[in-house]
């Protein structure tokens, strides 16, 4: 019972934060200087990790799909199938998992520390709104940087697949030539939409969890943990629903097939 109450409270709080974010943005209160500052803080630091993760995810999927296609005797589809599977769901989910650890947990730890050491209260005492000054730029920064990082990561997965296929003895040229046969424009649109939605989720969840951290060092630790868990569950949920909507739309309008 308490679990359900907590869940409702968290979801409600996040929706209220999202409402405030949209309202303040439409009132033109975003300080873009702070946003660019935060993008440097959050995004540029995570670039190296995203590149490594993307490389390995691409390589893992190429290897796994290669082994599986050998069982079914359809190796000629390797390039397209592994790239398409990676771009459409495995890549966004796994890279968003890592980003929710890096970008999301970093943001919630920073905001949680501010809340616990009463820096946010100090801003309230000065007659300013902490949501406007601290949280709004961070939400925009996390959205923009996770979106860009996810796109870069997905591009790198393709590169990882190509490099690794060369390593396991598949001709890289035939791998690359096979990609446009299966990866359609619809798949690319879907992966871009997924990247944007995951970025928004990470931003809202991590800012909410950091803003509501209570109780000293323990509180900050709990905030980081519950931020990471909530992010992961929401990413999996929305990934399924976006895939579902996409497949319904494809069947309805007959697009995305070759």
């Amino acid at each position, binding site marked *: 019972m308490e679990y359900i109450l907590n869940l409702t409270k968290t979801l409600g709080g996040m929706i209220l934060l999202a409402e405030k974010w949209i309202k303040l943005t439409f009132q033109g209160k975003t300080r873009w200087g702070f946003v660019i500052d935060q993008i440097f803080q959050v995004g540029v630091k995570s670039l190296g*990790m995203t590149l*490594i*993760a993307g490389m*390995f*995810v691409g*390589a*893992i999927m190429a*290897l*796994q799909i290669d*082994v*599986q296609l050998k*069982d*079914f005797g*359809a190796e000629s*589809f390797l390039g*397209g*199938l592994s790239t*398409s*599977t990676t771009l459409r*769901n*495995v890549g966004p*989910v*796994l890279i968003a*998992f*890592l980003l929710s*650890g*890096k970008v999301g*947990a*970093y943001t*919630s*730890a920073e905001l*949680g*520390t501010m809340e*616990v*050491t009463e820096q946010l209260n100090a801003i309230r005492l000065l007659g300013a709104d902490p949501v406007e000054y601290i949280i709004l730029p961070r939400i925009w920064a996390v959205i923009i940087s996770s979106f860009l990082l996810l796109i870069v990561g997905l591009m790198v997965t393709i590169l990882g697949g190509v490099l690794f296929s060369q390593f*396991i003895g598949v001709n890289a040229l035939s791998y690359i030539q096979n990609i446009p046969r*299966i990866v359609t424009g619809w798949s690319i649109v879907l992966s871009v939409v997924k990247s944007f939605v995951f970025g928004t989720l990470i931003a809202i969840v991590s800012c909410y969890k950091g803003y509501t951290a209570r109780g*000293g*060092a*323990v*509180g*900050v*630790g*709990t*905030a*980081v*943990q519950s931020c*990471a*868990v909530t992010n*992961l*569950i929401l990413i*999996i*949920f929305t*990934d*399924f629903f976006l*895939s*579902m909507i996409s*497949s319904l739309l494809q069947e309805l309008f007959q697009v995305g*097939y*070759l």
Partner: protein
Amino acid sequence: MRKRFRLRIHEALEQMYFLGVQSLPIVFISLGFVGLMMILELAFHMRLVLKHDALVPAFSAVLMVRELGPVITCLLLTSRIGAGIAAEIGTMKVTEQLDALKMLSIDPFDYLVVPRWVGSVFAAISLTVVAIAVSLWGGALLAIQKLGTSSGEYFNTVFFFVKFPDVIRCLLKAAVFGTLIPFIASYQGFRCGTGSAAVGEAATQAVVRSSLAIIVADFVLTYLFYAI
């Protein structure tokens, strides 16, 4: 002289409950959705490539058992227990409880890390088994509704294509990931600085480094198991 590195059964059982049983609902719900999603996506791909979807259950089950089952379960576990372990040990360091343990001549590694390692390996292996079962059932639900295969046909193809060595390798992967998480997380906790900012930093680093370690270890293990 006291025996070094003895296993504290009581603490280990406590950690098994805390790390394993309490992560069950998250894994249960998430991996059910992953199972549904894999059927949906692979149905699209198979229709594109092979023009029919008879092989969708087999392909998704093999991908699930070999790759995504252990990886996604252990990434979920990382975010739940990795951040938790680092924050807990970091808080103990900040509040000088680690020094108190040393004063009582209790080795912190012995008392804190070993029980968490036992609990985490137990949690990773058993949760992976649950995860794969749930994802197969989730997949069956969607395959029967959407693809029109009968349930007997579904499980028949799944059991035909998933071989026993695959399951053993999958559990080995889970055990390796379950070992990586507590060691990286408690390392981050032990070298945590002072103050609440440092605890947050330690928890963040624990999640990031152990997720990255899981992805890299998965690549190495898959290569060792299937490409050589």
